[in-house]
């Protein structure tokens, strides 16, 4: 039933002379000669963009869309990515005029409604994290990490302390070391933690007056709560360092515990994970950060402030601000969706969402652990990491094979081969917006796959339009752009 014509490349569909009329004729006098532009800057030939009539454009993209799995169409237990339902109500709200069409240089008195919401959002994120200083500025979680590290660096500089090292456990997200390197720190990776937790003895040997920040995800990337987190924080603070909480897994602990309460000094939120956002095939995100009061003066600009006497919201720059890390205020469109979510759930609802996320993950864990190894125990937070190590030893079927076979059963694959500390890792995160029926169906599919003939699984997926792209050849001779065939 696939419409192969419509899913040709746009460029193959194009024919000179086709097109769509979008813009009106000019209502101002035509400009004939352009002194200083004509010979120097004017384009000499038309752009080679495709020419296609709108109905064909629509058919093209609608057909392409059917080649995707998405949260709206499939269970998507992609661990660490928190693929929860994206409420439709948020989409309509985000299209309200002041939210969708405000220009970043529009005078503040024209956008008081929007600024009041952003101000409220700052307060909400402070309450949820237990950390009072908020910046909504960073464009995504990774930029939040980078921004918080720059904030910490500015704080240390202000205190005339030379601290050069950022530490993290092996299970850290790749963005942690990448952000630390970008912020000009030396990256120190801890080797230990075989049982899935930070190894305190090893941490101790690495701490000294060069230590700036310890970056840790909590709950960690194995889906476990770092039980010694208070001790970790005490050790860091003991040498004058700071604790950064990678907030990727905040969805597990909303209203249950707060980074500020377990020793964190700084953190970022991934709005699309902890609250909601459309995910949108990989973005956009928003990565607001929360910090302790003594770090707040260094936060990036701008922040929203409220003058109660005048009942007026405005933008301001913190006293010792590190400046901007991006253009304009922030990813307002995504922040608003997070705000709508918090408003829809309230304090009690957020707590219930975390409870359900953790309940769903533990239930799924209980349903798969008899046929799939789960190396780090039979309790988890909102996600768990299974391993196909034994299956691979017995039949040669790998985690990747199982992941591909799940697609045939109508489920998106879990995150595979992360974290690096688990062999043949399969990181499963059901989220709170899935029913018991879905979880059971997924567990049944996984169980079936584990007993299927190895050849069948290794040949998967069988039902998708394509099967296992050749990544080696793709990387050896990259083709990143269509080019017109030679005639």
């Amino acid at each position: 039933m696939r419409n192969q014509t419509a899913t040709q490349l746009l460029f193959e569909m194009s024919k000179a002379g086709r097109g769509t009329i979008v813009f009106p004729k000019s209502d101002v006098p035509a400009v004939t000669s352009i002194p200083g532009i004509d010979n120097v800057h004017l384009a000499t030939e038309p752009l080679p963009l495709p020419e296609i009539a709108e109905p064909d454009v629509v058919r093209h993209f609608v057909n392409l869309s059917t080649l995707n799995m998405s949260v709206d169409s499939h269970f998507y237990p992609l661990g660490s990515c928190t693929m929860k339902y994206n409420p439709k109500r948020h989409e309509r709200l985000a299209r309200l005029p002041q939210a969708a069409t405000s220009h970043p240089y529009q005078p503040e008195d024209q956008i008081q409604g929007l600024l009041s919401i952003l101000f409220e959002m700052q307060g909400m994120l402070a309450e949820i994290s237990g950390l009072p200083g908020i910046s909504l500025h960073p464009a995504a979680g990774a930029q939040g990490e980078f921004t918080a590290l720059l904030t910490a660096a500015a704080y240390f500089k202000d205190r005339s302390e030379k601290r050069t090292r950022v530490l993290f456990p092996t299970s850290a997200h790749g963005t942690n070391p990448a952000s630390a390197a970008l912020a000009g720190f030396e990256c120190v990776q801890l080797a230990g933690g075989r049982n899935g937790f930070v190894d305190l003895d090893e941490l101790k040997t690495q701490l000294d007056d060069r230590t700036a920040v310890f970056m840790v995800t909590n709950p960690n990337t194995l889906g476990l709560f770092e039980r010694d987190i208070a001790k970790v924080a005490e050790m860091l603070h003991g040498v004058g360092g700071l604790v950064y909480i990678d907030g990727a897994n905040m969805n597990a602990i909303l209203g249950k515990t707060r980074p500020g309460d377990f020793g964190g000094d700084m953190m970022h939120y991934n709005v699309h994970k902890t609250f909601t956002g459309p995910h949108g095939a990989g973005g956009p995100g928003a990565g607001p950060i929360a910090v302790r009061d003594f770090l707040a003066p260094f936060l990036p600009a701008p922040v929203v402030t409220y003058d109660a006497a005048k009942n007026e919201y405005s933008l301001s720059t913190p006293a010792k601000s590190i400046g901007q890390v991006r253009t304009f205020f922030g990813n307002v469109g995504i922040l608003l969706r997070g705000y709508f979510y918090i408003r829809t759930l309230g304090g009690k609802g957020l707590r219930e969402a975390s409870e359900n996320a953790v309940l769903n993950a533990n239930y799924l864990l209980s349903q798969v652990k008899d046929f799939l190894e789960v190396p780090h125990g039979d309790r988890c937070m909102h996600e768990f990491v299974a391993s196909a190590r034994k299956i691979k030893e017995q039949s040669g079927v790998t985690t990747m094979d199982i992941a591909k076979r799940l697609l045939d059963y109508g489920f998106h694959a879990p995150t595979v081969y992360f974290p690096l500390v688990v062999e043949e890792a399969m990181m499963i995160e059901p989220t709170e917006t899935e029913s018991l029926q879905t979880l059971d169906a997924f567990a049944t599919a996984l169980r079936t796959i584990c007993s299927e003939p190895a050849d069948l699984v290794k040949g998967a997926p069988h039902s998708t339009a394509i099967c296992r792209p050749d990544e080696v050849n793709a990387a050896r001779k990259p083709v990143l752009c269509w080019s017109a065939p030679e005639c």
Partner: protein
Amino acid sequence: MKPDDLRFAKTHEWVAVDGDIATIGISEFAVKLLTDIVYLSLPAVGKKFSPGESMGEIESVKAVSDVYAPIRGEVIAINEDLPDNLTLLNDSPYERAWILKFRMADPSQFNNLFSYAEYQKYCESATH
């Protein structure tokens, strides 16, 4: 060349010496670890390196690693066929897949490197 005739660096480069000229490549062990190599970048002739400095990058689908200078010296030749024939790294790691030739600044550094037997022992311990 047989691996027995070569010396090896901890960072998995091999070295063969002829007078003050060293030929450098990547060990079979390292190539296997990286799996399918998709890209190799080489330094320009005339560049000088100290031991441990990155001379270029080797990339597989799974990883990018640096190629480090095992000894001090100056690049006098690079294997220009190699970037377009990366399977040579798998097929002929110690012959046709040589990466570059060095004029050694201090030939005695050669003796600081592992013998093949020592290197094998090192690789074994590194994988456990």
